[in-house]
């Protein structure tokens, strides 16, 4: 006589054999969207900030969205160049590159601390003797991130170039992140530091040091902010869905909490032409730089 538990086991064995192939088919059909975020902050913080947005997008799109942080710019760039990210948050420089090389399209841009644009700044200690960029000739300048950091390297370099300083007229150092560049300047680890003008107001900076001890030596024009772009081979419907989802975040309480978690005050619509100015700056820096930033 067959016991009831045996019957149950037989039933589950049968159902697992027949259902599994169907699940595999569905998974390939509804592939998760990969969301990448450039390593503006360390990966742990990045995940904590953008996890709510990942969940929001999954729900809004009715499709799973995976957040994939990068430990550093190298890895990020590798993944970007490999077309891994369907949706990617990246700086202006990377966007220009990704658009040009991979067809990524901007769908929105950041608004941080109520500012829709961003400016690059060159910091010195207030008690330093530097009041002109030219006085940095032969001095150590520390840049936030890497040579691919648009606001912390490319634009400040553009400002230095405009001031007549060429590559080699000063010693370049790179801090792990733009805030680190500001902190290093404060700690007198360098003579000047480059980062976004808003970096000094970031809590990670403002809570550690007395920012009044710093002084902005030079500052750029306002530039469109950081970019949210989608991979070019996504369907227009998907692109539009993603853009609407992002732009509608500020319309709901839930969306605003998502923005707040990501330390954003909003997301604004953007077009590729908004970044032509960046393209010009990059072009000038590349022309006058000893080292091509595209490397």
């Amino acid at each position, binding site marked *: 006589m067959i016991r009831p538990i045996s019957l149950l086991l037989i039933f589950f064995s049968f159902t697992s054999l027949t259902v599994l192939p169907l699940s595999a088919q569905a998974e390939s059909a509804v592939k998760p969207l990969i969301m990448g975020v450039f390593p503006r902050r360390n990966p742990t913080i990045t995940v904590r900030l953008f996890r709510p947005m990942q969940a929001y997008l999954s729900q809004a799109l009715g499709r799973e969205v995976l957040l994939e942080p990068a430990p550093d710019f190298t890895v990020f760039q590798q993944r970007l160049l490999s077309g891994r990210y369907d949706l990617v948050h990246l700086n202006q420089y990377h966007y220009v590159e990704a658009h040009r090389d991979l067809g990524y399209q901007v769908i929105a841009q950041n608004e941080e601390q109520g500012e829709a644009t961003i400016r690059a700044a060159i910091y010195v200690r207030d008690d330093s003797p530097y009041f002109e960029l030219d006085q940095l000739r032969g001095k150590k300048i520390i840049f936030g991130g890497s040579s691919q950091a648009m606001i912390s390297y490319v634009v400040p370099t553009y400002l230095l170039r405009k001031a007549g300083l060429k590559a080699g007229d000063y010693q370049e150092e790179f*801090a792990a*992140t733009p*805030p680190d*560049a500001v*902190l290093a300047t404060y*700690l007198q*680890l360098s003579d000047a530091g480059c980062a976004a003008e808003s970096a000094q107001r970031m809590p990670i900076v403002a809570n550690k040091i007395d920012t009044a001890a710093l002084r902005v030596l030079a500052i750029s024009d306002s530039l469109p902010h950081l970019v949210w772009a989608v991979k070019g081979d996504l369907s227009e419907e998907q692109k539009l869905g993603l853009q609407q989802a992002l732009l509608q975040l500020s319309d709901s309480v839930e969306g605003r909490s998502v923005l707040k978690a990501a330390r954003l005050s909003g997301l604004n619509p953007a077009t590729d032409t908004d970044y032509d100015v960046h393209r010009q700056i990059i072009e000038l820096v590349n022309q006058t730089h000893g080292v091509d930033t595209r490397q």
Partner: protein
Amino acid sequence: MFNRAGLRLKFVSAISLLLVMTLGFSAWFLTTEEGELLDLSLSARAQSLGRFASLISPQSVYSFDIVTLDNYVSQIAQDPEVRFSLIISDDWKLMTTTLPQGYTRSEVLALVNGEASLPNLEIMPFPIEADGVFLGTLFVAVDHSLTRLVIRHNLLQHLLIYAGIILFLAFIIYVVFYQLVLRRLNRLNEGVQQVAGGDYQLALPLESADELTDLTRCFNEMAAEIRRERDALQKSHRTLEAEVAQRMLAEQNLKMAASVFEHAREGIFFTKPDGQIFEVNAAFTDMTGYSRDEVIGHNPRFLQSGIHDSAFFQLMFQRIKQEGYWTGEIWNRLKNGRIAPHLMTISPVRDGQGKLDHYMALFTDISAQKQHQQELEHIAHYDPLTGLPNRVLLADRLHQAMLQTEREQKSLAVAYLDLDGFKQVNDQYGHAEGDRLLVVLAGRMQEVLRQSDTISRLGGDEFVAILSVLQPETCETLLQRLLEVVSKPVVLNGVELKVSVSVGVTFYPQAEPVDADQLLRQADQAMYQAKIAGKNRFSFFDPTLEEHLRGRHQILEQIRLALRNDEMALYYQPKVNLRTGQVVGAEGLIRWQHPEEGLRLPNTFLPVLENHPLQVELGEWVLRQALQQLRAWSGTPLAFPLSINIDAYHLQQPDFLERLKSILAEYPDVDPAWLELELLETSELRDINRVAQVMRACTQLGITFALDDFGTGYSSLMMLKHLPVAHLKIDRAFVCDMLNDSHDLAIVEGVLGLTVAFQRQAIAEGLETVEHGNILLQLGCEVAQGYGIARPMPAEDMVSWLARWLPEPSWSSQRTISREELPTLFAMVDHRAWVDQVVACLEDEQTVPPPLDQKICRFGNWLDNFGRECYADQPGFELICQQHQQVHHLAHELLTLREQGQLEQARRRLPELHRMRAGLLGQLNLLLSHRQVH
């Protein structure tokens, strides 16, 4: 000093020293050990912190990752012992932003450089290298103060634990030492001290078998030896002391006995076993009168009084033999012949072998006690005033008499006597006179009683007599004699006092068993019936009546109930002016409309209320009824004054006046002047002045007073003198009988004389016939009431009576005779009385006939003297003489017929006699009329 300290102190001191040394060593050892531990701890701490340095990523240093480096040093600083930590770059620049609170960058760098230092703060450097390349240094500032504090705390804790253990061990050692040595030594020491103090009974316990036990055993044996020696000494000492004390006591006893014998107030004498006196004391000679020489050698028989028989003395010696002594009262004859009572005790005295040696007799004279006892017995059993047995002795006598009656099958009468009118005597003449009267009456009563009877005084004017009678009926003579002797006047200090007595009698045995108290109650009740029946008489106890009335209390309850049930009523008897026929007033008389017994007259229930508070309630009810009736009759032909009777008890209530005013206030439309209060002349007035005061206050209100039944009491004149009375009401008894009794006529005439003298108005009660009216008018009394006018009637009948009322025509023409003509009036009465007596003889054979000789009778006497003198010249006088002669002749004939046995024939001729009397009296009236005309 320490050498002189006790063993316990020394031992404790040694233990304490040991403890201090052990603790000191422990402290030194632990301090050393803890120091080494501190070093080890710091070393381990350094190694632990050093591991942090290895965790720091060189990339973070290389790439100026300030945020990450800050995180590192922040984590290190979380260690409680770490004051702060920081990272210095290879070019000696600060790479972290975290600074210890209160320190600047330069101060921190100075500490790191070793240019400055802080106590307990050790700054430990840990180099940061990557592939052998020096990138920077991690500095950790460790604060050792906490570690040192912990170590010191541990050290102290350990020391305390050690000290505790050492103390405990020391205590254990001490306890063991104390139990084994100290305690036993202490006990031995105490034993030695006790023995030194004289306690040789001590025996210390022996424990185990060591040296101390041996010592204790030796000590015990030594103490026992001392004790034996001491006991032997004490025994011999006590023997000596006892012998000395015994001799002293014997000597003292002898002296005391001699002194007692000589000075005792009791008579003492000693006799030999054969009875010969061999010694007497001084008191003996004093008490008996015999000298010592006269009695020595004689038998005490010479003291015998002869009162006691031989059996008395046999019993005396029997008691001495059986009980060893005799005590009792004995009457002895003294030398002077007097017999005196002695309380004597005789005891045999035996020698050491128990053989009778002699007798000792001791006696005291109890003559005084005996006399006092007799006096007390007399006081206790006799009334001090009259000398009669009192209530106590009466009870005893009654009890004895009842027993004797049962034994001899006789009868016994118990008479309860209560004097009538004694209260008035007391009030009028004082208690001293009253007491003398009681003494006289007691003597009289005692005289008329027989030897076998007992008369006792219960108190006040109450006496009880116990009469032994063969048959109940035979005691009536005795009772009558008692009534007579009491009612005889008593003259004291020239004043004649007169009282009577009411006697209640009951008999024993009865059908039902009764006791002495019941007999007295029955007699008391019967006495009360005698009072109600009119006093001065005796009444036998009626068991039926008792059962019916259940005593006075029951009657009172019935009256109270009657008041509540509206069974009482006022009847009204008019008072009229005989001459004018005018109704001048009415008297309200109470009646009891008893639901079962019909209309009851006041004399059937008012006596019960005598001196009872219910009297007041009834009096006030009468008062209200009268006032109510006055109001009802106001404005009608019946509007005339009303009088009601007021009892003396009621009048003498302290609040009488206030209550009267209150009741009058209830009838504001009634004029109090229309109200008259009639006070019995026989009333017992305790304080006549007080009563007069109350009455005067009432007269202020307009109320008038009348003295009722005037002439029946003994204080008439006194009351008339003191009390503000407007009217005197002549008692109906006098008025009724004045036609036939010249004495009563004299009283009526006297009362009327008093009213004139005292300016009062007289009202005659008891007018029953026209003739009563005629005589009253002739005597000058114009106002009267009585059945001859109207009987008392309900208020509603008064109207119809008034409508019918017509006065007797003859009254209007009746004149008042002068005092000179009074003898004529008395003569008429005498003649009427003489005829009545003749009639009585014919109706009752026992009646003694009046004098038949026309010259001897009182009327004949008047006719020959006063009549002839005053009226001889009157035309009708001779006719009167003839008529008088004829009346006597007829009377003689009739009485002769009676004597001849022809009584019926004689009676048939009585109307003839009445006609003759009427004719004679008519002629006399004419005589008086002619006299008036003349």
